[in-house]
């Protein structure tokens, strides 16, 4: 912990390995996180595109690439149920823990936060490097589990026991991978908090911090305090699996017609409590940085101050706090008593208030503005209604009477995908388009960006909206055949094809983005000045694009004003940088 030697990095020529692989520069680490997590997002999405084939055409051979798979997973291109379950569990795990969190926190947080607060680097650069490499190892462990004889984890991303306790070896790998990922998040969280609290430039008071930094601050607290109980739970589940304890196994458990030979006396509910104690705050870990990104882009492209900046900050703090006491709304059907369920319903309704405030503030910021419809702004604008839809569809799930019939149906899948896919992921794309010139000195191509935007935003709705309809009809979320063998599902089953085609179309529309991303590194339009978006925050105004080497700023910037002073009357430009007196 205390080892954070930093002397003299900037003074001597660094070797390639020190500079680009085992780098301690937050900008390089941010890019490492970014590329790795984008790759994981693509992998996680590919798993889902495979599953969607089985859902749309159950039992039919997958054409073209089906023959590439092994006989234990897809003999003759027909997906086995076990493989379907592996894909499902790993899709969730990869998207949440290896894709979105490292992109939102590891990549954007690392790259942008020190620049926005005027810091030379993160507070503990070596710890920062360790955080990335621990994450990387965790990711490799997760991926490698697909090559185990019985395949990867199959018990869902929530890993509920007793199933997860008696699962094949993939689940053990999952737990080891999770322990690495949790450790990485903890190292990152300590680093972010120390950086934001300690390394702010002169004049950068808390109330002058951009909203994005506030969002990262609260997110880091969530990671710091919510992840450890899951680590504890992971250790307990590892003991259950490897040592034969029965922390999560009740007495008299019968598996495949035989009494399980364990001591018993444990409780599957214990896992659920420990898991959701993390996993509900985790939802906010996914969404808060996204809100932060959107706030930056909205302010920049409306050329107005954010409407209600302070209220947004109070809301984000309140959200963070409340997110610790709503977790059991995931567990209404576990036989919870009315008093406790009442408590969690009330807290769940309360937590929707600050989310609505933030969303409303962002909408009101648009009022009366002459919007610049740049690609990042389009993504940010789409985030607003999409996240709104995700939030509103969550309300029935937060109330026990409506949650009980909807629990574990496709409706739940539709709800949280609206929050994380057209919500968070669109916001993350917005961030990539917005800060790409910061990192490379070149703009991403606008027409390609717009194709990417419209294709993604529209196809995502064709994937997730039908899920809500199917769920209301009662289709369960975990059916290998997508409901084909159920009488009651027949009226809504045709949506499976629509959703699958939309998913593949969404995949196609990522191609212009991937091309754009790499092509623009060398061929993109060069930025005309260091501040191509005419922004006010420090990362644009006090440092070059792309930024200097290790150390970021030639001289420490001094901050004189709030983050969003756009269109200030009497000023000669329509933006008033934070570091201008």
């Amino acid at each position, binding site marked *: 912990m205390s080892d954070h030697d930093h002397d003299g990095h900037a003074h001597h020529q660094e070797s390639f390995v020190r500079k680009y692989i085992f780098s301690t520069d937050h900008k390089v680490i941010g890019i490492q996180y970014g590329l790795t997590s984008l790759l994981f997002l693509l992998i996680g999405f590919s798993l889902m595109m495979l599953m969607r084939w089985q859902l749309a055409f159950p039992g039919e051979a997958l054409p073209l690439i089906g023959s590439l798979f092994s006989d234990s997973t897809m003999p003759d291109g027909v997906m086995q149920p076990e493989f379907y379950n592996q894909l499902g569990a790993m899709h969730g795990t990869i998207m949440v823990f290896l894709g979105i969190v490292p992109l939102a926190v590891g990549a954007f947080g690392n790259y942008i936060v020190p620049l926005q607060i005027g810091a030379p680097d993160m507070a503990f650069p070596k710890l920062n490097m360790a955080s990335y490499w621990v994450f990387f190892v965790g990711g490799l462990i997760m991926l490698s589990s697909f090559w185990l004889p019985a395949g990867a984890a199959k018990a869902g991303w929530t890993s509920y026991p007793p199933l997860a306790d008696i699962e094949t070896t993939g689940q053990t790998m999952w737990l080891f991978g999770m322990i690495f990922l949790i450790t990485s998040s903890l190292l990152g969280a300590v680093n972010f908090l120390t950086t934001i609290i300690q390394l702010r430039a002169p004049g950068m008071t808390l109330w002058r911090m951009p909203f994005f930094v506030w969002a990262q601050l609260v997110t880091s*607290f969530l990671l710091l*305090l919510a992840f450890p109980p899951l680590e504890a739970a992971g250790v307990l589940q590892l003991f259950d699996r490897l040592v034969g304890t029965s922390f999560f196994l009740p007495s008299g458990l019968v598996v495949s017609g035989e009494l399980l030979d364990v001591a018993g006396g444990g409780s599957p509910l214990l896992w659920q409590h420990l898991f959701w*104690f993390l996993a509900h705050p985790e939802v906010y870990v996914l969404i808060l940085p996204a809100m932060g990104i959107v706030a930056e882009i909205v302010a920049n492209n409306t050329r107005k101050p954010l409407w209600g900046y302070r209220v947004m900050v109070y809301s984000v703090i309140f959200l963070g706090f409340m997110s*610790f006491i709503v977790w059991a709304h995931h567990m209404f059907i576990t036989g*919870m008593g009315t008093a406790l369920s009442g408590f969690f319903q009330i807290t769940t309704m309360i937590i929707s208030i600050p989310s609505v405030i933030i969303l409303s503030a962002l909408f009101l910021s648009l009022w009366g503005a002459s919007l610049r419809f740049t690609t990042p702004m389009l993504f940010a604008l789409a985030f607003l209604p999409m996240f709104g839809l995700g939030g509103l569809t969550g309300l029935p799930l937060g109330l026990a009477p409506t949650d009980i019939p909807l629990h574990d149906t496709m409706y739940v899948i539709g709800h949280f995908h609206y929050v994380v896919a057209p919500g968070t992921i669109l916001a993350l794309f917005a961030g990539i388009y917005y800060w790409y010139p910061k990192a490379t000195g070149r703009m991403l191509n606008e027409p390609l960006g717009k194709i990417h935007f419209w294709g993604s935003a529209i196809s995502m709705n064709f994937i997730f909206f039908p899920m809500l309809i199917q769920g209301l009809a009662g289709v369960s979320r975990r059916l290998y055949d997508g409901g084909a063998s159920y009488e009651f599902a027949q009226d809504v089953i045709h949506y499976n094809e629509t959703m699958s085609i939309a998913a593949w179309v969404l995949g196609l529309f990522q191609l212009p983005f991937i091309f754009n991303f790499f092509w623009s590194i060398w061929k993109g339009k060069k930025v005309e000045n260091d501040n191509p978006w005419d922004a006010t925050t420090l990362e644009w105004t006090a440092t070059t694009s792309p930024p200097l080497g290790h150390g970021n700023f030639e001289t420490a910037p001094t901050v004189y004003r709030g983050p969003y002073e756009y269109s200030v009357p009497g000023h000669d430009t329509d933006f008033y940088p934070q570091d201008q007196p």
Partner: protein
Amino acid sequence: MADSHSMEEIQKHVRVYMYVFGTLMVLTVVTVAVAYLHLNIWPALIVALVIASIKAGLVAGYFMHLIGEKKLIMYILALTGTFLVIMFILFISAYHDQVGRAALEMVYHVA
């Protein structure tokens, strides 16, 4: 912190550390002694937790210099403590407020 302290102050600190050490020893003996009285679960639990909390307070307050520590650290610990207590309370309530717990009690004779 240390650089602002003079020699005498440090020596005063050292004396305090020794007093605290003595108190911790006494309290440890008391906990074990109470355990040998075989009290009922609730009084035993309360005595054990009260003594443990006093010991923890002494270690944190004097050895970890939490007395007189900066507000920032206090806020962080207060936040953590709040979530810890919330976790304990909700976990215990989650056990006690279960549908069908009466039936469970009949089967297992849980008190």
